[in-house]
């Protein structure tokens, strides 16, 4: 059981290559981290996996427990079990957070079956409590007027409600103060289990102090250029990404 990315190539609509052969396997039960400088293609990787239409896959494959997801629609991929916590979550005016999450859960039920509203709110409130989110966020429009930290917490709330098999967290730590980071980490850690896999995308080692990864990968110019254990993150923290230049000139 894994989310398997093999030799993935993707370009912008104008043909500019962004991903240049990404290889990565995230088995259930494991937490992987991708680090790398800005512009190396980390967000693009997460969006290509989710099916964003601004990118064209020109080669390679992404399979979820052996099933090709590149053929699936965006919403199908989500229902199949991939979740992306966005680096920049969209604002959706006029759609309340509670209705939004409910619609997402409803979409997973067979036709004719409805969400049990009482159980839904009970579950929602429990998770919001864990994430220390005020109840008023249920009635507020999705992400509208939320601070950066509130948006990130809201992403984790959705993750916890949808219980995806594979989660990709794109820079969930950016814009969070240490207290908010701890809360978000608590949410993610509560979701870790033998039958879920996580991919943490981050620029900084800091997040990994709170969500301990099993493996760390370095991305550069649309490829994974190094992989290792948690110690790799610490090394990067010390030395920075300068070694990439050496790699490039070598």
């Amino acid at each position, binding site marked *: 059981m894994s989310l398997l990315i093999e030799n993935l190539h993707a370009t912008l609509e104008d043909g500019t290559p962004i991903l240049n052969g990404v290889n990565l396997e995230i088995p259930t039960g494991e937490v992987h981290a991708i680090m790398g400088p800005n512009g190396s293609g980390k967000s693009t990787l997460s969006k290509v996996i989710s099916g964003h239409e601004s990118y064209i896959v020109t080669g390679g494959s992404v399979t979820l427990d052996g099933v090709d997801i590149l053929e699936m629609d965006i919403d199908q991929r989500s229902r199949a079990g991939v979740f992306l916590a966005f680096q920049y979550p*969209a604002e959706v005016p006029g759609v309340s957070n509670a*209705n939004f999450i409910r619609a997402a859960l409803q979409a997973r039920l067979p036709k004719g079956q409805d969400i049990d509203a009482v159980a839904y709110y009970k579950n929602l409130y429990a998770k919001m409590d864990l994430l220390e989110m005020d109840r008023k966020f249920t009635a507020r429009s999705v992400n509208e007027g939320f601070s950066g930290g509130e948006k990130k917490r809201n992403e984790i709330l959705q993750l916890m409600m949808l219980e995806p098999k594979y989660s990709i967290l794109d820079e969930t730590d950016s814009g969070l103060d240490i207290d908010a980071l701890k809360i978000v980490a608590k949410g993610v850690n509560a979701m870790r289990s033998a039958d879920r896999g996580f991919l943490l995308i981050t620029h900084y080692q800091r997040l990994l102090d709170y969500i301990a990864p099993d493996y760390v990968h370095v991305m550069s110019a649309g490829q994974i250029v190094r992989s290792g254990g948690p110690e790799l993150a610490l090394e990067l923290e010390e030395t920075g990404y300068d070694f990439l230049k050496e790699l490039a000139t070598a």
Partner: protein
Amino acid sequence: MPTAISQPSILTEAPRTSAVFPAWFARTQEAAWTSFQQTAAPKRGDEPWRFSSLKELDFSATTRAEFLGEASELIQRSKGLEQFSAKFVFVNDGFALAINHLPKSVICMPLAEALLSHSELVEQYFMRHPATLGSKKFTDLHTAHLSNGMFIHVPAGVVVEHPIEIFHWVQGQHQATFPHTLIVAGEKAQVRVIETFQSINERDATWTIAVNDLIAEKAANLQYSVVQALNTESKIISVNASEISASAVATSFQLHTGAAWARSESICRLLGEESRSYMFAVSVPSHDQEYDLRTFQHHVSPGAYSDLLYKNSLYDESRTIFSGLIFVDEGAHRTDAYQTCRNLLMSNACEANSMPGLEINADDVKCSHGSTSSQISEEEIFYLRARGIHSDTARQLIARGFSIEVISRLAHEASETYILRMLDEKFATLKS
């Protein structure tokens, strides 16, 4: 020699003022009829009818609607709020039901009755201001032919707790109704009124020419909402005017989901310091529906505030026209006036026309106006779909959210719930 048979129609038949109505009313109807006949019909090139489909203004085979006797089923269908202060049902302008829990001092009754029991009071407020946005001829026609409507007078200091509901049902191929709603909120009085227009069947092409006048006296708070959910064969012209005295607030909200063609003219006149006007509209046209919405924010007094927010979500080949003017009179200093029209284009074949406008003849004025047209943002759609929500549902959630932003401005949960329910009835018929 064959003679052309002139069909009876509302264009040719003189008013039939009921003999029991007061003389002033008969004279008013007579005068309106004369004025109607003397006023030219809108024609191509008339500014107030720019972009309008003038061909829709065809009344030739249209006659006054006949009253239908049996209304019990329609009373059943008149489902509004859970809690209301009063509820009135009209069928083809004929009175069908009154439930009234209002304080005794509040006058709330069919206009036909008020003309008998409160003739002087009605006369004082009736049609005080002529339509100025192009439909003078049609308000004349309305005045000439009207036989009923609602008269609501909330005396000074009275706060009406729950909304007053008015339901209008119409039926009859080429038949016309002329409902008139007159609401007066006295000094420091507060009242909410929700009026709903619906067709009895999906088949009959009816005409409705409606006028509603809102008068908010000093420091009153008057909120009027209208839901236009007629069948898609019908047409409606509605002219709404509010007169707002010092420190008073008037809110006028419209929801348009029905009718083949709807023309709405909405005017507010700010007559005193710290008077406030809110004008809101949500329109969701589909197929070949066309909504023609004209507004006028008239700052007569200095130190007044007005805000207007109109939102259209256009599906299929539908069409909207928004024309709005903020007009600041000479001397109306310290005016604060805003106007926004936003169009959400849900298809490639729809057409949204916007003509925002501003005329300022005073100093120290804060005004802004603007209109936008856009399709649903790809990023919003992606976000919802990335959570597993089907594409159609996602588009609908976003369009609904776009409308809810206006509805929530009513800041009254029960009213919002009802209006949202009526909006959802429309969305349920739409394919994104």
